[in-house]
């Protein structure tokens, strides 16, 4: 199943990029070609947020139904989510350099992304710090849920440090106002990132299960004849 996802990730990426580079007109004129960065920056940022929701979803399921697999899914999502957060940050910094002239500007959205990175890091750190996997799973699940509650507060506090008025550096343009060609390329990239995520996460789930069950007999039997 995994190879299919890999394929599903590869093709749209090529397609999305092609579209993004050749089909979209140079609407913002030659001086603003750098806007093409958004074709990785925006999808990556979206992925970082959606994957966190997925993580919390699995965490909640795990806590309610007490199923080990849910926790394994949550743990598998985390590194990929963190990766996309990192990509969003790095590309965001590069975007900032080109469009605002500085490497880092404490722009609220980018700063919130940084905090999200720390929240991912906290989740993974807590999981690896506790040796008992039963307790580790549940503790980090609870942490993720608490984090979810706090993220909107954190975002709003960074976005509006002054409660009486709010300002932001990211121009607030509604999605519908964006040229269709760009939208198509964007959504294609988002789809591609999702396929990539599925593939990578499922591989990781397999790895985690192998690692956790390494002392059990069914695993030894499975591996016995096949050292690939």
């Amino acid at each position, binding site marked *: 199943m995994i190879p299919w996802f890999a394929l599903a990730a590869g093709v749209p990426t090529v397609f999305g990029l092609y579209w993004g580079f050749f089909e979209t007109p140079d609407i913002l004129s030659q001086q603003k070609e750098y806007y093409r960065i958004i074709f990785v920056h925006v999808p990556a940022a979206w992925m970082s947020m959606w994957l966190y929701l997925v993580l919390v979803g699995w965490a909640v399921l795990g806590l309610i139904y007490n199923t080990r697999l849910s926790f394994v899914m949550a743990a598998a999502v985390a590194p990929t989510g963190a990766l996309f957060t990192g990509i969003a940050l790095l590309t965001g910094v590069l975007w900032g350099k080109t469009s605002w002239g500085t490497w880092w500007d404490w722009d609220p959205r980018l700063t919130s992304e940084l905090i999200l990175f720390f929240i991912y890091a906290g989740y993974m750190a807590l999981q690896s*710090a506790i040796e008992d996997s039963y307790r580790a799973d549940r503790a980090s699940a609870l942490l993720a849920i608490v984090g979810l509650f706090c993220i909107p507060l*954190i975002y709003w*506090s960074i976005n509006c440090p*002054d409660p009486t008025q709010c300002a932001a550096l990211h121009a607030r343009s509604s999605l519908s106002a964006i040229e269709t060609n760009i939208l198509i390329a964007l959504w294609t990239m988002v789809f591609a990132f999702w396929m990539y995520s599925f593939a990578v996460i499922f591989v990781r789930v397999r790895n985690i299960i192998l690692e956790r069950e390494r002392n059990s007999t069914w695993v030894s039997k499975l591996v016995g004849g096949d050292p690939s």
Partner: protein
Amino acid sequence: MSTSSSSQAVLVLLRRDLTLAFRHRSEMFTPLFFFILVTALFPMSIGAERSLLQNIGPGVIWVAALLAALLSLESMFRSDYEDGSLEQMLLTPQPLSLLVLGKILAHWLRTGLPLVLLAPLVGFQYYLAGETLITMMLALLLGTPVLSLLGAIGAALTLGVRGGGMLLSLLILPLYIPILVYGAGAVAASATQSLPAQPFLLLLGAFLILAMVLTPVATAAALRISLG
């Protein structure tokens, strides 16, 4: 479950905690000394120019308060965890969240409140005066309980974990950001007279109420997870 026995239990717990803390008075002073020391470091490193200090004062004081709170968090549950009384608390018929609230209150009374009372001294260091000092005390009065409340979740999650102190800081600091932003904002607004400080204080009050309602539940859940 009768409400009178629950509130009785909380009062007993509160008295016990405070008595214990009073017996180990020196432990109470460490976070306070830390607070004063950190705030004293900045003028030494950045320079003692009056307007500069007035500018950075609110932020520095709040960050120092945050760090001092983090330092003191580990002690919230540790001694009870080590002598087994924490497990006893889990077994009593009284609702755990209520007991937790009592413990958090005790913690704040011995770490947060002294800090609030001590803050004007530090305020003088930073050339803050009169009304600003009062605003600062109010803001800290509203904010430090939230620090204790949120920190309790982290303390419960990292109970007994190796390297827990640093991990605790990594987990909790992102969650502290809204309080930091608005707390420092309140003091800054009052200092520069550019904005009314009241909206900030109202927001902090809202945070406090929200935290009082939600965090004991989360902390109780975390305690159950950590103690199995």
